[in-house]
């Protein structure tokens, strides 16, 4: 199975561990990731606060490239990227005038035909049975708190993924591999995201609450599918511990990490060795 792959800046940069993890995990499941040629920034948080058309044009160009390269589906593991791409896709499919205008701006014909999927959707597509079949070990020792963050399920109309307030798709996958996810309360709360640069203390507070709730409900690790969440919960965990004088000691995995482990991949190839908090 060939899948169009849009890594976005994070998976090539600060979160290259996520990039490694996604590639390794999906490869092991027989999916080949074909990175888009000449992809550009999705616009992320910056573009839509500056210029509406820019925020539309940036992801649209990526969609145009995907269409030209003939991908019916495009994986964008970063929820910010997939949300921006989906927003653009919705706008493009709704208006032919807009399609024409945007095509002119990005200098590529764009229809908005390519479907955009997040990591969980790719795994669902591969299918639980297929994953289970290839699994070589159980994840029994993991009691993860699955954390979806603010973007994976929102805006609900645009992303149309899982239940906006009470998602459960990661749990379903992990349960199938033997893990025992915990029920907890902060699945879709905000971790602070990009505010980490502008307002450190608020981000620390938000992330602290998330970690605390996970621990309080018996989690022994956390699973995410977003590079930004990982930054705030893993990289910043030491700062949180310091600020709140506590010790969460909660390893934060990407979903692909745990699936990869079940498939028998080693921590290094999944990039787990590049995480900050090491599993006890």
């Amino acid at each position, binding site marked *: 199975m060939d899948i169009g792959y849009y890594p976005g800046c994070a998976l090539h940069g600060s979160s290259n561990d996520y990039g490694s993890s996604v590639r390794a995990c999906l490869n092991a499941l027989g999916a080949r990731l074909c990175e888009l040629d000449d992809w550009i920034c999705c616009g992320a948080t910056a573009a839509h606060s500056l210029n509406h058309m820019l925020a539309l044009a940036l992801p649209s160009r990526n969609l145009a490239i995907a269409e030209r390269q003939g991908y019916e589906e495009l994986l964008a593991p970063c929820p910010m990227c997939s949300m921006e791409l989906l927003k653009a896709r919705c706008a493009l499919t709704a208006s032919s005038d807009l399609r024409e205008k945007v095509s002119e701006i990005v200098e590529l014909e764009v229809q908005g035909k390519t479907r955009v999927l997040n990591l969980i959707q790719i795994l669902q597509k591969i299918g639980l049975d297929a994953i289970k079949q290839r699994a070589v070990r159980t994840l029994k020792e993991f009691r993860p708190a699955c954390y979806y963050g603010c973007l994976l399920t929102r805006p609900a109309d645009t992303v149309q993924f899982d239940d*906006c307030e009470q998602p459960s798709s990661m749990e379903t996958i992990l349960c199938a591999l033997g893990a025992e996810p915990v029920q907890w*309360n902060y699945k879709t709360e905000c971790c602070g995201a990009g505010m980490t640069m502008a307002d450190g203390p608020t981000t620390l507070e938000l992330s602290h609450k998330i970690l605390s709730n996970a621990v309080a409900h018996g989690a022994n690790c956390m699973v995410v599918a977003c590079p930004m969440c990982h930054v705030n919960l893993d990289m910043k965990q030491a700062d949180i511990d310091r600020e709140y004088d506590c010790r969460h000691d909660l390893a934060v995995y990407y979903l692909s990490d745990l699936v990869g482990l079940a498939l028998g991949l080693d921590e290094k190839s999944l990039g787990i060795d590049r995480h900050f908090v090491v599993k006890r």
Partner: protein
Amino acid sequence: MSRIGIFICWCGENIARNVDVERAAAEVADLPGVVCSVAYKYMCSDPGQSLMRQKIVSERLTGVVVASCSPHMHLRTFRKAAAMAGLNPYLVEMANIREHCSWVHHDRQQATTKAVELIRMSVAKVRANAALQPISIPITRRALVIGGGVAGIQAALDIADSGREVVLVEREPSIGGKMAGLSETFPTLDCSQCILTPRMVDVGQHPNIRLYTYSEVEGVEGYVGNFKVTVRKKARYVDMDACTGCGQCWNACPSKKNLSEFDYQMGNRTAIYVPFPQAVPARPVIDRDACLHFLKGKCGICAKKCAANAVKFDDQDEVITEEVGAIVVATGFKLYSIDRDQASSKLAGYGEYGYGQYPDVVDALQFERIVSASGPTGGEIRRPSDGQQPKSVVFISCVGSRDNAKGISYCSKICCMYTAKHTMLYKHKVHDGQAHVFYMDIRSGGKNYDEFVRRAIEQDGAHYHRGRVSKITQENGKLIVRGVDTLVGEPLTIEADLVVLASAMQPAGGATELAQKLNVGYDEFGFLSESHPKLRPVETNAAGVFVCGACQGPKDIPESVAQASAAAGKVLVMFSNEQLSREPEVARINETNCAACFACVRACPYNAIERAEVRDRKGQLVKRTARVNPGLCMGCGTCVAICPSKSADLEGFTEQQVYAMVESLV
């Protein structure tokens, strides 16, 4: 040959100032078919009318044109006058030379010319007028009331008290509706059951009321004055006539752990049960899905205990036909549930409130039962999960209501009031407890209503926070309610023991299906549509069908009762005559020419056109045709415009009349 009389009114100076009425009278005197043309100072005055009556007789007029003011003003007047002189009133037409001429055209020359043309047009029309007879429809002077809540009870009693028979259909085993389950009512805090149950008893004992409980309206045929209604009486497995309501059966029933519908699943009942002690009729019903006799084929203890031999396990549904002349719909409401699964995809549930997975998040009606002396907790305020007395209760307003994201844009109107009531009842019972209310606006218009809310805040110390709740989570047996107080401008987290949702009011289940059977319109939310929001608030566009109570829109008890009495009044007005007299200006179909495409049937806003068959004397089908039911037709003429062969025509505005008018514009 027509003999038309033209009567031109001066209207004092109103017309005569700008229209040369004498010249106009002279100019139209020679029109074909005109035998007299006179001008008079005030046509609508007694002498004016008697002039017209004299001329009708002396000139043997076959048609009259009064050129004066708007027909909306005096057409009725002049038609009545003509009728007094023995001329069919529908042979009178008016030319509006005041509002449409003298008052708006100040050039005397132009105004006079136009007046002459307007008169000529009316003369052309009246020559094609036909003598019409009012349509009379015999009526069955019995009413059907659908729904036995407070509105239905009120409507039924009002009609029955006036001496007319009423058929009251209620789908639950007892009448009483939502009000029977309420604790106390705002703004007086009088006990709901205390004021309702006597009226329920009145219904049960009224000689003019035929009560069908545990029954549903299955089909409605016919039209105003002549409805044929089929009612399905669901099998009750108890002989209503034999049963004395002694209670031996339900006291002995071994199947005891069945969730009580009346207590909104917060208490239990037996398999053979009465929903609540004051039920009317006070006769039990067997829940087939819970009864051991039906589930396992053994038991039958109730039958053994019954001294009256009233338990009938072989009872069957019964279908009854009732003939009635008017129908009052009072099917009431239900509360919006925050569940994930909703009736329509437009209505999304509230994941942030936990989709009902926390037992201590209850809705307002459940809270009513918790507070009620007859409720599952015996009136003590205890929360469902562990029976503890909640020390901190959060009330959330506008759950669903006014929330476009959840698909409901309207205000449910009563929540502000009952939420205030809830905080008071809570405080009166849990003195050391604290009530919190999250609200968007407080809407407390009504007699003594705002004072009531102020009391809740000022005397009973409820904390009102203007803002929405974003999330409810559960931690260590507490409900963590996170919201915002926009007046303070800060996020707010409250650790609550119980959360009460003031969920939106929705039409009761099945209301739209019933509306379809009755041909009554309904809005996008399923509330039934009244005929006119101001002037015909209890009528519907289906003649003879009236609405009252919350099936028409959110409303509180006094409003429901008032509307119910209004609907009953309308029914009684209808019943005050043996025949229903209707304007004859209705559509008719030329059945010989009708091609039976039935476009008119689709288009008719009143479902007044039916598919019919023409048969010969031997009963052989000759042809199919559309046919107008004059009892339902309101005379809009939409069918005429839509009929390609013009087999449909409209009395009073026939093709012949309208074309004659246009063709007079030479």
